[in-house]
Structures are given as structure tokens and as C-alpha cells.
């Protein structure tokens, strides 16, 4: 952690320049990211859209420090993370950068509460504080009553909410969501988007979510469209276009 200074509040959460990711070598080389530059200010909710193979998931993995870019620089809160050690990458994951996955990825042998505590276990947060923050996060996403359930006793929507609680409990700077509604039915998907919008509006959490569904994308305030590893459109969702999950439910 020593290489990473406390966040400078004025800097954008993400500032990436000419990020490139090339898979394979020689003949079978695939350019998944072709020099994209990106700036996301604090508190923004962004949808990353495009057909499969457009590079949106790769960008997500690079931004989430799950993978390293082949070239380019990546600043999180003004700190250059392009050359940090894998130990530092690991220490930022789950603490400063949190994930929500399409396939949810709760550990099946742990209760909801213990799943939510997991990132804080690795962050060496003391047990009492860990328990408190996990309980708070589960309450905030509306599954406070399910703390002792095992993942196989949760519906898809409930499990994804637990996964969101796991992501936000450590108080991250950035939430990355990869097709968060992809495995859910329409109603559960809407609930999850509602939770995202709530966290974004009430806590000012910066959220980047990958989706191929335009309806899901319209829940964000900004949409970036990708194709062949490049950005082809980057625009704000106008007030009238924007969808609010809670209003849809009541409508």
C-alpha cells in the first residue's frame, strides 16, 4: 500500500491513457484493447456497451486490476497503477476497487455475512468492525434479513444483492460491474439496477457497468459504446432518456 497515496479528491477516479491489451503472440495475436483513453469523474455512473468481443470486458478487467494492460497508463485517483507490483494490485482489489460479476461468484461454503466479510478479511479489518460494516451493507441493499443464509438458499436477485453488499462494504472508490443483470430475470435485474442507482445517488459511489442491453445502459448517466477495442461513441444520457429503476417498479 505504501506506493499508493491517499486519494486526491479533485482528481478523476479513473484517468486512463492509450490502454492497449494484446492477447497471444505472432499470427494468433488478438488486439482486445486498441489504445483507448478514458476519464471518469468521481460519482459518475457509466455504462460500457458493445457487442461481445468489442473489448468491454477486457477494459473492465484492466480497470479492475484483474489483468495488466500491454501498454498505456492507468491512474486511479491520480495514482499511477501501470507499474505497481501484483501485491499492490491485490491490495487495491476488493478495497479501493470492488466487483460485481454476471455469475455473482459468492463462495458457496460461506454464509451471506461471511461472503460480505471476505474482502475485509483480506484487508485485515478487525473482526468487530468487519461484522458491523458487513451488516450495514447488507441492510443497505435490502437483504439484511438473509445474513445467515448460504448462497444456495438465495434467489438470483438476492444473491446478486449480497454480492453488491460484498463489493461496497469496504467503502471502495470504484465499483465495477460486469453484466450484473445478465443472469437475472427482468424483475431481479431491475432491483439490482435500483440498488446501483441508490448507491450512486446517496453515497456518490462511482460505478462502471458493462452491458450489452441498451435498456440496462439507459440506467446510467453516461454511455460509452465500444467496437473492436475502440470507443465509437461516448455520450451523456439525457434527463428524459434516463431510466430510474424504482419508478419502473412503481409504474
Amino acid at each position, binding site marked *: 500500500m505504501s506506493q499508493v497515496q491517499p486519494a486526491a479528491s479533485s482528481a478523476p477516479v479513473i484517468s486512463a491513457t492509450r490502454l492497449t491489451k494484446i492477447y497471444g503472440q505472432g499470427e494468433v495475436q488478438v488486439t482486445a484493447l486498441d489504445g483507448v483513453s478514458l476519464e471518469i469523474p468521481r460519482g459518475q455512473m457509466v455504462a460500457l456497451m458493445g457487442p461481445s468481443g468489442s473489448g468491454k470486458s477486457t477494459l473492465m478487467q484492466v480497470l479492475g486490476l484483474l489483468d495488466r494492460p500491454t501498454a498505456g497508463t492507468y491512474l486511479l485517483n491520480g495514482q499511477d497503477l501501470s507499474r505497481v507490483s501484483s501485491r499492490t494490485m491485490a491490495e487495491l482489489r476488493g478495497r479501493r476497487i470492488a*466487483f460485481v460479476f454476471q455469475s455473482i461468484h459468492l*463462495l458457496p*461454503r460461506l454464509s451471506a455475512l461471511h461472503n460480505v466479510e471476505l474482502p475485509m478479511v*483480506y484487508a485485515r479489518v478487525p473482526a468487530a468492525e468487519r461484522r458491523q460494516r458487513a451488516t450495514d451493507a447488507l441492510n443497505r441493499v435490502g437483504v439484511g434479513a438473509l445474513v445467515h443464509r448460504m448462497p444456495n438458499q438465495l434467489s438470483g436477485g438476492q444473491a446478486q444483492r449480497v454480492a453488491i453488499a460484498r463489493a461496497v462494504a469496504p467503502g471502495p472508490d470504484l465499483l465495477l460491474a460486469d453484466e450484473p443483470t445478465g443472469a437475472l430475470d427482468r424483475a431481479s435485474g431491475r432491483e439490482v439496477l435500483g440498488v446501483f442507482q441508490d448507491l450512486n445517488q446517496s453515497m456518490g459511489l462511482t460505478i462502471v457497468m458493462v452491458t450489452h442491453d441498451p435498456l440496462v445502459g439507459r440506467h446510467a448517466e453516461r454511455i460509452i459504446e465500444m467496437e473492436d477495442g475502440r470507443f465509437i461513441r461516448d455520450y451523456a444520457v439525457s434527463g428524459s432518456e434516463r431510466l430510474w429503476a424504482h419508478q419502473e417498479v412503481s409504474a
Partner: protein
Amino acid sequence: MNAFAIALDSIWRHRLRSVLTALGVVIGVFAVVTLTSLGASVRSYVQGQFAHVGATIVTVSPANPGSGAKKHPRFAGAPGGAPSTLTLADAQAIAAAPHAPIQRVSAVADIPLTVGTTPGASSGVALSGVQAPFFKIEQIPFLHGRFDGSGVVLGYGAAHTLFPHVANAMGRSVYVGTHAFTVVGLLKKGSGIAALQSNREVFLPIGTGLKLAGLSTVAEIVVQANSTQNVGAAATAINRVMTARHPSKNFSITKESQLLSTVTSTVSTITTFLAGLAAISLLVGGIGIMNIMLVTVTERFREIGIRKAMGARDGDILVQFVAESVLLALLGGAVGVGLSAIASSIVAHLAGFPGGLTVSAVVLALVFSILVGGVFGVLPAMRAARLMPVDALRTE
């Protein structure tokens, strides 16, 4: 939630697999601990036996002139050995040696005559001619009577062979060849190696025995030094006396302590050798653990990916998987020690010596199994730790 809780959970989830994997270590630890513990039991039993009989005994036995061969009279026996030239006079000379630290002396002769309860009958019981100090030297206590030079003394087993239905054989008659002797003493049942022989024997005064058998030489002379520190000095004094009387050096002098150290070191060597062989099976057990841990890591790519995405460092993953293999080996080791405790107490009971595990063997085996789990767990754990989270999460 700590590494060992995760490890226990994983081991419990795959119970059958864990049991089979740990079996290699169970067998290895069982073999090492049982063999070393039994070896230690045998060693301390032998030492105890000698301490009981007394490490103060020096034996003079016949030898080929100048051969200098150190014979162990108790085990190497006189038959087939050098013809004896030792006489009662030699025993008297040793007893009379000036300033020698000698407490007791007795000549011993094997009397080749039959013993029975009717004239000329043979009961198969051996007959020895000894002198009164013999029983003190060999520390065989009397049940009744004493060796007063008038009649015979029966060993505990010999009394039962000769008089199977008689509770107290004192005063009865025993025939050596055709000569009748009165039983004037009965010996207590001795325990241990040295007493096995005397249990089955009948003792008569050596002078009478030699005369009846027409012998002039004795089989050996047993001498007791006045303390364990003086055994060497006693042996030197005996050697001086005997060399003066037998310039051709047709005798050999053996200290019991030499025999003790020979037996002890032989037992130690055998124990170490067997334990070394057993340690190989522990090694094989370790390879079994490595094999299963590699499978486990492959099966749990997704879990590893999730954990890494949630901020687990490479070290956290490494510790988790090493903990699992160490725990597996340690459980195997503990079961092995348990089985070995049972086995060695059974063997000790059957063989008739004090059983029980040696603490050092148990500690060594447990330390060794932790080491085996650690060493053979590191490679699979490193494979897990080095996975990139994306690669791990991609496996669905």
C-alpha cells in the same frame, strides 16, 4: 475464516478423498513411531535386565591359547568352544588375590549327569555345580532353605518339573545318577534373560558334582566386583592372577558391561535402519498429498479467482493451500501415532517388556509429517497463488 478453518472445511467436504490421501502418512508415521518405540523399549528392557543382574559381574571362561577372542559365555556357551583348563584352584586364587576389589567368586561347572526322582531316572533337568556365593552373584533369591553344601537346590521351574504336585519340595530326595541328595533349598522364580536358565536347573555343590562326574575342570568362574566403578580394576586383578597360573593365556575375561553395550548398540542400529526404511513410506505419503493437492487446486480455480478478486494476496492463497496440506499430513500423523500406541502396547504386552511410545519418536514423527505436508504442499499452493484472477475466473 482463517486458513486452518478453510482447510478443515475443505478436508471435511472431501472426507473419503482426505482419508485415502492421509493414509499414506498414517502408514508412514505408524511404521516410524512403532519401530523406534519398540526399539527403545527393547533397549531399555535389556539395560534393565543387566542392571538387575548387576553390571558388576566378570566372567572367566576357557579360550584357545592366545586367541584372545572375547566370548560371551552366556550366549556363546561352552560346547564346541575351547577345552576348559579352569579349575577350582583358579577360583580360590582369584578369591584370595590381595587388594583386588572383588566381593564374591564362584566356579560353575556343567555336570553331565541325569537328574530324577528315582535312581537313574532322567527328567531332562540340567545340573550345575556351583559354590555358595553363586546365588548372591546372580541375584537369585531363595524361596526356602539355603545352599549349605549338603544337598541340592532346585530352580523354580526345575522343582515343578521334578515334583509337579508338591507345593514344597524341601526335604525330598533327588537322584543324581544313582546318588540320592536331599533338597535343601528352593529358588524363587527369577525374571529376565539371566534367570531363564537358572529357573530350569538343579544346583549341587561343585566339589561333589565334579567328583561324581569324574571331572577336574570347571566351565567358568563368575566374579563379582565390589562396585560398578571397580569392574575394570577387578578384571585387571583377575587377569594378573590368571596369567600367573595360565601363562599360555588359555582363558578369556568378559565384563557383563561389554555384553550390554554390544547388545544395546546392535538394537540401536537395527532400529535406526528399520525406521529409515519406514521413513520412505512417509515420503511416498507426501507425494500422495502433493498429487491430491494439485487436483484440489485445479478444481478450485473459480474459488481462487473470487478470492483474488476480493483482495487476497498471493501469500494469502499460498498459506491457505499449504495449511490444507499440512493439516492433512498432521491429521494423518496423529492417527498414525494413535495406531502406533495401540500396536506397540500390544506387541510389548505379548513380548513381555514395558511398552509405550517414546516422546521423541512421537515428536519427531509429527514434526516430520508437518514437514512432509509443507514441502509437498508448496508446489500445488504456488500454482494456485500465481494464477491471474482473470484466468481463474474464466474457468466456469
